[in-house]
């Protein structure tokens, strides 16, 4: 079974040949792979090298934590990859940014107004949580719209507070 696995924009062609053989970009490895207990922990012995990792799903990707590094991997078989490629052109460029609360908290200040033009990195909103004030910034240039909260509001995690178009 052939997969295309993407980590940080780099694509790896991973071919799972049988239970003990995997090839990566054409290079063959002898492997022994198994889960450990009922935890998201996996042990991989690959050409004699022993690797232990935590692998768990997060939205559309797999999170791989090993030797203290966390990787975010997108695993697709060839059909899924074609499907995504055909959809990609339609939504990518004009995607609006929706500022969602990264954690529950209270809105301390909103230094921008509805309809205001802003630049990347500008502070959109200050949210207080865990006794700290956090400045939430815009990831791109644009215009502030759909301001849904006001100063003093309590917001839940992932609640959309405003949009940048």
């Amino acid at each position: 079974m052939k997969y295309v696995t993407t980590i940080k924009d780099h694509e790896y062609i991973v071919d799972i040949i049988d239970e003990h053989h995997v090839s990566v970009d054409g290079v063959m490895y002898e492997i022994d792979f198994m889960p450990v207990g009922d935890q998201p922990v996996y042990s991989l012995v690959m050409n004699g090298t022993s690797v232990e990792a935590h692998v768990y799903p997060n939205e559309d990707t797999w999170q791989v934590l090993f030797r203290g590094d966390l990787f975010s991997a997108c695993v697709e078989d060839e059909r899924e990859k074609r499907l995504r490629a055909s959809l990609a052109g339609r939504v990518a460029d004009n995607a609006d940014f929706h500022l969602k609360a990264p954690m529950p908290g209270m809105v301390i200040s909103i230094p921008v107004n509805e309809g205001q033009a802003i630049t990347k990195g500008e502070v959109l909103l200050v949210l207080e949580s865990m006794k700290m004030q956090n400045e939430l910034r815009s990831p791109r240039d644009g215009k502030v719209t759909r301001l849904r909260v006001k100063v003093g509001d309590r917001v839940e995690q992932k609640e959309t507070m405003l949009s940048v178009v």
Partner: protein
Amino acid sequence: MFNKVLIANRGEIAVRIIRACRELGLLTVAVYSDADRQALHVRYADEAYRLGPAPSRDSYLRADKIIDIARKSGAGAIHPGYGFLAERADFAEACRETGLAFIGPNPSSIAAMGDKAVARATVSRAGVEIVPGTEGEGSLRDDELLAVAPAIGFPLLVKATAGGGGKGMREVNCLEDMPTLLNAARREAEASFGDGNVYLEKLVEGARHIEIQILADGQDNVIHLGERECSIQRRHQKLLEESPSPFVGEDEDFRQQIGAVAVRAAQSVSYVNAGTIEFLVDKDKHFYFLEMNTRLQVEHPVTEMVTGIDIVKEQIRIARGRCLRYKQEDIHANGWAIECRINSEDPYNNFIPSTGRITHTLLPTGPGVRVDTGVYIGFEISPYYDSLISKLIVWGDTRGEAILRMRRALEEYKILGVHSNIPFHQRLMDSHRFMGGQYDTRFVEERFSIEEAEEGKDSHPEIAAILATLVAHRQTELAAHVIQRNERDTSNWKWLSRWESLRK
């Protein structure tokens, strides 16, 4: 003399204090908010009583309820930990009036050191040098602060009078910015401490934050346990502490000199119990008194690791009226200790706090490793309290060994479900400037970037790719087996039409 102690705190420090009580054979009483019913401190204590809803002001700050619970449960003493009620003179006074021993200093010492303007005036009279600022001038209005600022000079800091831990603190670079920043500092101070008063302090550039742990009994014996280096900070929040300080290093004369000044500062307020004197030290080893923390510090374990003294047990002994078991000449630092504060925050996203459930955690163990924590698998990191998950402390024979051991321990430490700042500490351990001890209080904010530190690092993404693929493949196969066993749950015609629509 008491034999039951109420711990008026939560999280790792409550667990830490319960452990000390257990070793001394004392019974323990925990208190908890609705968010902490399942917390470790509740489960470890002999008795536990509910305080109220999750927000601190309805639970851990309810001095009246806590004293009431102490009385009803028959506790003879209250240990306040750090934060919450630890530095509230009125609480210490209320304990005393109720006949409860407060495991900490006298209310008068807390009051004298708690109002930093008074604190500076007091130690200044005792001949301890202080940083220029609005010392001893009480609570000034904005226009008064703006008038005096140019005389102190820029850059300067606006700090909360009742503050600590970087809250209600702002850095000001010019007079024009000051009104806005004053406003922000007052608002944050009001929210954190219920007191919006602020003062100004000159910013000592290139400064190191070095603090001295002291112990004082009620019989006029005051000793110091050497220094802790706390210059690794972000927005005035300490992230890593070590003892001894690489800056003080082999300079035993300097160590004894700064230690003696700390003892003098403590004596100036007739201090009893454990406390910490914080100093700013410039590159010429010129040092200024910053503040005194009249409580147990978050970073007390590094001193415990090098001196072998259990500071919490000493606190309890002192509160029971015993005299110190140690004299100054008995105190020797052995080896090196480093503590990393493990916070639930995302180091790749401006250190934004992260809340959620800890789905999996694996603690580092092995030689020279200590973890102080209050969390476990299934624990919910809530937005109500601070973001400290745990403190990872290592000891090594030398600083080099301690750094290598910390690297190893950070690699072993796994926390899933929330973001943690473990990657930040790992990159810090790899930093040449950290290894060389070449850092000041601005290092993290101005000369260290986690993204830059990760460039060109040998991290084997191809192995991660194989692992992710194997796990995904395994999941697909398991799902396929389930479907085969039960046959398809919809008609073949529906499957066909879905398949067709996928191919369009």
